[in-house]
């Protein structure tokens, strides 16, 4: 039942059609897209830290020095590694899509306008 999907690649997949370009420089376009995901992930990390701090503070459970000296065990290190794999696939989505658009047949890229008239 639980088919193995390549989630990182599928989640970042390009939608059909030509991707609009907004700036004169495609390099600027690419960098902006990467930067915006970084901004998102920074907000996510900030929110998670805030959740933790509030929970821990409420229970009087940790000290700052414990965070500074924390050493992950093998399982924790593997979980963090997998997180980073997915994280980078998200950040570099636009690069993956550039590559996917090379493989997309030109006929498909040109059809979205035509289809609406059918």
């Amino acid at each position, binding site marked *: 039942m639980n088919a193995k*999907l390549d989630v990182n690649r599928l989640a970042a997949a*390009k939608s059909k059609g030509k991707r609009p370009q907004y700036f004169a420089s495609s390099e600027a376009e690419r960098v902006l897209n990467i930067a915006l995901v970084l901004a998102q992930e920074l907000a996510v990390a900030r929110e998670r830290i805030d959740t933790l701090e509030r929970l821990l503070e409420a229970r009087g459970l940790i000290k700052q020095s414990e965070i500074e000296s924390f050493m992950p065990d093998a399982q924790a290190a593997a979980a963090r590694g997998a997180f980073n794999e997915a994280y980078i696939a998200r950040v570099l*989505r636009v690069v993956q899509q550039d590559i996917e658009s090379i493989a997309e047949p030109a006929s498909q890229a040109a059809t979205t*306008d035509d*289809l609406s008239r059918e």
Partner: protein
Amino acid sequence: MSQQPYAGPPDYRVVHRHGVFPEIGHDDAARFNFLAQMNRHLAACVLPGVKRAWDARVQPKLLAQLGRPPEHRREVREAMQADPIYQTWSALRRATMEQRQQAGRALVLGQAGELAARAGALNAGQASLKLDPNLKLPRYVEGVDHHLMPGSYHTELMADDVSAAANYDAGIFATTGGGLGRLNDGAGEALVAWLARNAPDFKPKRILDLGAGLGHNTLPVAKLFPDAQLTAVDVAAPMLRYGHARARSLGVNNVTFAQANVEALDFPDHSFDFIYSTMFLHETSFKALPQVLKEVKRLLAPGGISLHLEQPQYTESMDLYEQFIRDWDAFNNNEPFWTTMHELNLPKIAQALGHTPAELIESGAAAVLDPALFPAQAQAQATASSEDYGRKAAWYAFGTKAA
């Protein structure tokens, strides 16, 4: 100096979790929170700057170039495409839409098997889910990844897949900033309010929802008329499986979810008292739309009402700049029929099909913000600030009634 009350989007975690709603982790919710805030920021803080750029530097230059005011929104668009603020707003809005897809797909595809099993358990042996594996998809569905959803509504990645629907359902609360309510059914609720105001004595027994998707806007009508039988039709099997399971888990049992093309339905003439659609017509095509309206006319019983909700039409009285902004989705959000659909004279099409002017309905419908999500003092501020064109929970309503 007292601070203004917070009037932004609610935290994603207040979204309603029905029986097939995907599991949402802490960071999934945080990603959606960021995207809802981005949409809000782009609409409230950046889009007014785009208008300023038009007023202050683009329009004057265009007037000088043309020697006359622009006559079509195309001229506005071509001039604006060179403006750096418009470029930035557009690029960020597109990127936000793409990130929304990635966020939703990443969380859903990792649990696609579990979601298929949960939906399957709720759907097993139910005659009210009618799938047609032999249905041929219209090309305007098969060839377009609507609003940048890779694979659109219909693509199946495994047996009994519901992932396209779960992704759609999980993300819409972020895209609309909670404006459609905890069940994302604001358009259905707006229909219910429209009926109460415009047809208080109307008690339809047989109701058809066209292009119903996962039934967000089917269930409010089903709950309003518990003695009626509803049919929710769509071409996409993942949406119907998920929608049927969602309805069951929410305790709604008077809806049949059926896979069919609404251009040609397998029901006898006059089969329904009320036929409606929400944000559906713009996802058909130039040839399909009149065919859909023709089918509605055939299926509507004497005395029946039909009603379709869409974003506002581009009428001659609409300012060309507003038309240009409203048309953004056509060029940047994979909505190939958006422009043509919003230019169509629907009353004229209906009259060509034999409706008299007295039978036509042209009206408006709007969702009311949920006070649990938007506290009273924040409501005015939330609604008064700049509009997120194309996403606002206020619609043009077009339809027919008995003269």
